[in-house]
């Protein structure tokens, strides 16, 4: 292979490599004077060796003297280091900051929190929408999926079993109340056996009303406050 063809092929190779801002130069254009002093034949080389003249770009042993010495290819580090978190986990954290800024709901069901809500407890979910009545029930299952964390509540309404999944971080939910704890920790994470007639707890309405009464005694009735707000709003509207 002649020098020119080698060079042209190398140039083609360089062009094929996608151009980036930090592209290492693969080939240094040879200064014009070098080619003139380069040995063209073996005889010339031998004569040069005999005269012990300094030969530029002297090839190493075992290589064809016609081939130029291999250039050192500069190796750069990858363009930007990988972010420590994946895109999905970044998204989860940003969304959680939006939906649960204080991390209260996260703590409510966290595994590390000693006072966390556990399966078997009776919960009540209040909604921001005033038309939707709060739903109470026994916590049967906690589905821990980051942003999509959901809880399954079971109750009886008009003697019909009803189960509801709610997303923990749903913006529609105003709050989650712990009505009653299970006396003993449930020995299972999923209490699906509570669907069986033998283990079914039935309606939790009585428990919830008792709890509401007790809370009223201590003056912490959220529903009453809400109703008062509604009344005030209605009064204001009436005055106008």
């Amino acid at each position: 292979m002649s020098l020119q063809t080698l060079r042209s092929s190398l140039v083609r190779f360089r062009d094929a490599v996608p151009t980036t801002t930090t592209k290492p130069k693969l080939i240094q254009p040879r200064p014009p004077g070098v080619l003139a002093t380069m040995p063209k034949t073996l005889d010339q080389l031998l004569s040069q060796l005999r005269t012990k003249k300094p030969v530029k770009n002297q090839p190493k042993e075992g290589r064809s003297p016609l081939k130029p010495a291999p250039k050192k290819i500069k190796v750069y580090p990858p363009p930007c280091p990988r972010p420590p978190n994946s895109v999905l986990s970044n998204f989860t954290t940003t969304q959680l900051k939006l939906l649960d800024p204080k991390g209260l709901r996260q703590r409510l069901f966290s595994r590390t929190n000693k006072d966390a809500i556990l399966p078997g407890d009776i919960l009540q979910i209040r909604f921001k929408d005033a038309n939707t009545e709060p739903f109470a029930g026994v916590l049967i299952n906690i589905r821990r999926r980051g942003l999509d964390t959901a809880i399954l509540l079971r109750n009886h309404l008009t003697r019909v079993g009803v189960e509801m999944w709610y997303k923990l971080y749903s913006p529609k939910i105003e709050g989650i109340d712990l009505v009653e704890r299970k006396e003993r920790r449930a020995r299972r994470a999923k209490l699906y056996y509570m669907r069986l007639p033998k283990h079914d707890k039935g309606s939790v309405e009585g428990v919830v009303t008792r709890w509401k009464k007790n809370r009223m005694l201590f003056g912490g009735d959220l529903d009453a406050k809400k109703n008062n707000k509604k009344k005030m709003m209605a009064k204001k509207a009436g005055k106008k």
Partner: protein
Amino acid sequence: MIQLKTMLNCIDNSGASIVECIKVLGQKRHARIGDRIVIVVQRQRALGLSDSHSNSAAAQKVRKGDIRHAVVVRTKKQLQRKDGSVVRFDDNACVLVNKAGEPIGTRMNGVVGRELGEKKWSKILSLAPMHI
């Protein structure tokens, strides 16, 4: 997932107690809450005991073997809502309607799904004692 041969509870005072689905109306595989089906009455309510408040004529509107239209109001198959919540009942239940879509019974006992309102069954929704 109500389909051919599914047995449903009838929760109105039309006189039917247990009905069997014989057709899902519309191009559907299964009926969900708010879907219309054709049913055959399999068991009717006992005459005097069914509803002491309503007159006996109301409790006798349909008889065993009658073929009627009905609207599914509860399903055992869970149904996901747009906000991500899921509702699931312990039984399948329906309400009988006539061809025009008006409920045959005058009262209903039992909770129903809220999807009825979205599917133009607000009359049934208002008759129901509770909806979730």
